[in-house]
């Protein structure tokens, strides 16, 4: 059930209605039922995976929580009795048991993710190696379907279990509440990757109908639909024409395709998240923002702090930091400082951690070398930027342009171009092809391609370009207004006539200009595939 399908809109309307009609104590159980119904639309066979993740994480969470309790009880009872050494020993043993439980849970769940998502990728790599070695043997691919939202709910659950292990909060004792946290339907297919302590604050609460929440939520949903249907799904045709025909569309077309894809991905992903957050808001549930106007970033590191924020922070909190403070890594750090000196020795462990994080980020996005290369290229650019910091400092000390509008605009455009170029890995079928297409922008760039009417052969009519242009202007304007605070809050304070005019224009634009229905390929959100 796509977010943009009729069935989802009907499903959502029923949930909204029931949610505020039933007794408040039944609100979260209703959401659990709704989430499982929603999940069931993807296929009953996938229930096994999500149920297994839910139950295993729930049980291990309880186990770790109980171990914490036992530890604190034991320590309380033996306060003043145990020696410091005994205390340390007890704590180490206790921590080791908790660690084993955590490890079991992570191995099981990341194992499920790994098997379902990466088995065939691994087989294809083995086959490649076998072929290179001259072996005539090839392994057959397995027919494993990827359960809906597995990357998202696995990360959510594993974030929870790590937090419980770290003693950040108590484990959830109600399995149904925990099941709702894992499967909450608005965010199961593309995030944001919520943390249990954040989401549970409002997810299990009883909510009265609040007109402002409803109003804000609905307008956010509409805004999401606008981005997805009017912009993303319209430009998709052009993007597909270019990337699916690499022999025909090279040079200037690759450049155009790259920008189109940047625009499409932004509208698609942020649109989906707008719908998710909007739905939650109507239900009175708060979900953390996943974007902070990323296309206004002045460098890639900043971009990654503002794009898919919950994924970035997940990797930072649950991968980057643990690797950085992992004992062997600390030992390596010491060794590196001794061997290469302070300057290099300090950086090497950070580089290694970064490479691991970006490799994982890449492969999380998709089981292919394209995504791995995409992740590593991001890493490379960020590290190079860091290395160039002294040069930037020197430049800014010589030229006072840092706060100049033109220079900042240059930085923003540079970041967009750089990010878009890296995303070419996301577009083409393999890494060599991506490099070939990237290269064609420099070797085969024919400016006349942009003005000789060829752009009208990409499956987009002149009218489509007009709609896309207006869409771009609206997106940019809204982003600029957002700098001064919430657009919806500002709108809410405006006279009713103005407010309703905005709703009217949004609804009519979506219905009339949306790329949906017969004649359009219904397209799921790009991040659904991850």
């Amino acid at each position, binding site marked *: 059930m796509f977010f943009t399908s009729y069935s989802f809109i009907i499903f959502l309307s029923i949930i909204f209605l029931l949610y505020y009609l039933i007794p408040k104590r039944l609100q979260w159980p209703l959401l659990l039922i709704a989430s499982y119904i929603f999940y069931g639309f993807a296929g009953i066979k996938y229930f096994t995976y999500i149920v297994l993740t839910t139950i295993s994480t729930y049980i291990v969470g309880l186990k770790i929580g109980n171990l914490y309790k036992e530890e604190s009880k034991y320590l309380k009872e033996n306060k003043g009795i145990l020696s410091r050494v005994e205390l340390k020993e007890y704590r180490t043993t206790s921590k080791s048991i908790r660690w084993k439980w955590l490890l079991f849970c992570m191995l099981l769940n990341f194992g499920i993710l790994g098997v379902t998502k990466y088995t065939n990728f691994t087989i294809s790599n083995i086959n490649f190696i076998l072929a290179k070695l001259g072996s005539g043997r090839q392994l057959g691919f397995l027919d494993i379907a990827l359960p809906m939202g597995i990357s998202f709910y696995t990360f959510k659950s594993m974030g929870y279990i790590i937090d419980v292990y770290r003693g950040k909060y108590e484990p959830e004792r109600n399995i149904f509440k925990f099941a709702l946290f894992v499967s909450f339907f608005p965010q199961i297919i593309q995030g944001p990757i919520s943390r249990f302590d954040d989401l549970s604050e409002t997810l299990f609460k009883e909510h009265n109908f609040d007109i402002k929440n409803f109003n804000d939520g609905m307008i956010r949903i509409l805004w999401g639909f606008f981005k997805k249907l009017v912009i993303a799904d319209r430009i998709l045709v052009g993007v597909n024409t270019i990337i699916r025909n690499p022999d025909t569309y090279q040079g200037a077309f690759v450049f155009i395709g790259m920008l189109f894809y940047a625009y499409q991905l932004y509208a698609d992903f942020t649109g989906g998240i707008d719908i998710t957050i909007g739905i939650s808001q109507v239900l009175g549930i708060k979900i953390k923002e996943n974007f902070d106007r990323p296309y206004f970033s002045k460098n890639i590191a900043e971009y990654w702090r503002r794009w898919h924020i919950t994924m970035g922070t997940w990797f930072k909190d649950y991968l980057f930091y643990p690797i950085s403070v992992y004992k062997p890594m600390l030992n390596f750090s010491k060794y590196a400082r001794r061997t290469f000196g302070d300057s290099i020795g300090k950086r090497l462990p950070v580089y290694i951690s970064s490479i691991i994080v970006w490799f994982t980020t890449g492969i999380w996005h998709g089981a292919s070398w394209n995504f791995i290369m995409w992740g590593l290229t991001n890493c490379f650019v960020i590290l190079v930027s860091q290395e160039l910091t002294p040069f930037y400092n020197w430049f800014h000390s010589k030229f006072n342009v840092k706060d100049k509008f033109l220079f900042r605009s240059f930085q923003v455009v540079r970041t967009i171009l750089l990010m878009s170029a890296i995303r070419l890995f996301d577009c083409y079928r393999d890494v060599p092809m991506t490099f070939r297409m990237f290269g064609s922008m420099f070797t085969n760039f024919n400016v006349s391609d942009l003005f000789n009417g060829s752009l009208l052969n990409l499956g987009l009519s002149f*009218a489509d370009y007009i709609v896309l242009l207006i869409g771009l202007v609206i997106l940019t304007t809204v982003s600029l207004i957002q700098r001064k605070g919430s657009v919806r809050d500002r709108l809410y304070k405006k006279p009713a006539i103005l407010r309703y005019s905005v709703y009217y224009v949004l609804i*009519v634009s979506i*219905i009339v200009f949306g790329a*949906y*229905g017969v004649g359009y390929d219904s397209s799921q959100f790009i991040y659904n595939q991850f």
Partner: protein
Amino acid sequence: MTKKRIITFVSFICVLLASLFLLQKLFMPKYVHGIVEGSLIEEYYTEEEKNHDIIFIGDCEVYENFSPITLWENYGITSYIRGSAQQLIWQSYYLLEETLKYETPKVAVFNVLAMMYDEPQKEAYNRMTLDGMKMSSSKINSIKASMMEDESIIDYFIPLFRYHSRWSELENDDFKYLFKKENLFHNGYYMRADVKPVTSIPKGKKLPDYRFGENAYDYLDRMVELCKSKGIELVLIKAPSLYPYWYDEWDEQMVEYAKKHDLLYINFLNHIDEIGLNFEEDTYDAGLHLNVYGAEKLADYFGRILVKKFDLEDKRNDEKLKKIWDSKIEFYNEMKEKQLKEIEEYGYIKSLAPNPGQ
């Protein structure tokens, strides 16, 4: 919620719905030029006297091959053709079912070419048949039976969702015929006065299986039952169109079926000489459909059979009907003259071209 808020909200909803309704009207294809067949179904509802002796149902082989005016002029038979482009058998069944809510004819005539299709074929044809129908259980059932895989029933209930993308291709016709269209047909008959002789008669390709599908037979059975329950004589016909090729194996099945159910079945392809059809001058598209001259000959031939077989009353002396049909005849003759004039002037029927203004 304060009273003022409620009023504002309700007003907003009303304005929104009214605008969407208007947009829907605007975006729906008007079918007044070019592919006019899309207007066939809806025109039935404008019929003043829905009390016909004969109701034809079927595809282009009925709405382009029989002239109801001739049936009236020559035999005093009132008839209406509820035909549409590539009308599938379940669509014919539900159209007949719907028509019987308005009237009970003595005879229902069904063209059996539709038996060749056992499943939905094309969304565009579905639309031309279904969009024109008024909302009813028959329409809903017909939609359900006709939908292609990528279609949604909601698009039929709210056609704006289907046609919204026409915003970039709106034409003068869309505004001109926003609320009202003039009649284009003659009791469901699509007149063509131009001539394009047959140059070659295509032969049918060998088929792996000549047996009509179960679904098609099921709806034919239902049609037989429906007519029986209403006391209507069902006549099966195969119009004398030269292609799509009508196989002997298909014909045998229809002969057998008619015999089994005690129905009249006429394959007009076997009576071309008796009808007096000359494919040098009686077709406008090289044998696929008859032109007005052919349709008049065929109607005359068929009328004779119907009168004889079903003892149909000659109503030409009925003053009320005479008045109605006189005006239909006038419209018919005017159109024929207009088409001939256009053919003479432009070499083709300009008023039926997609962009007659250009």
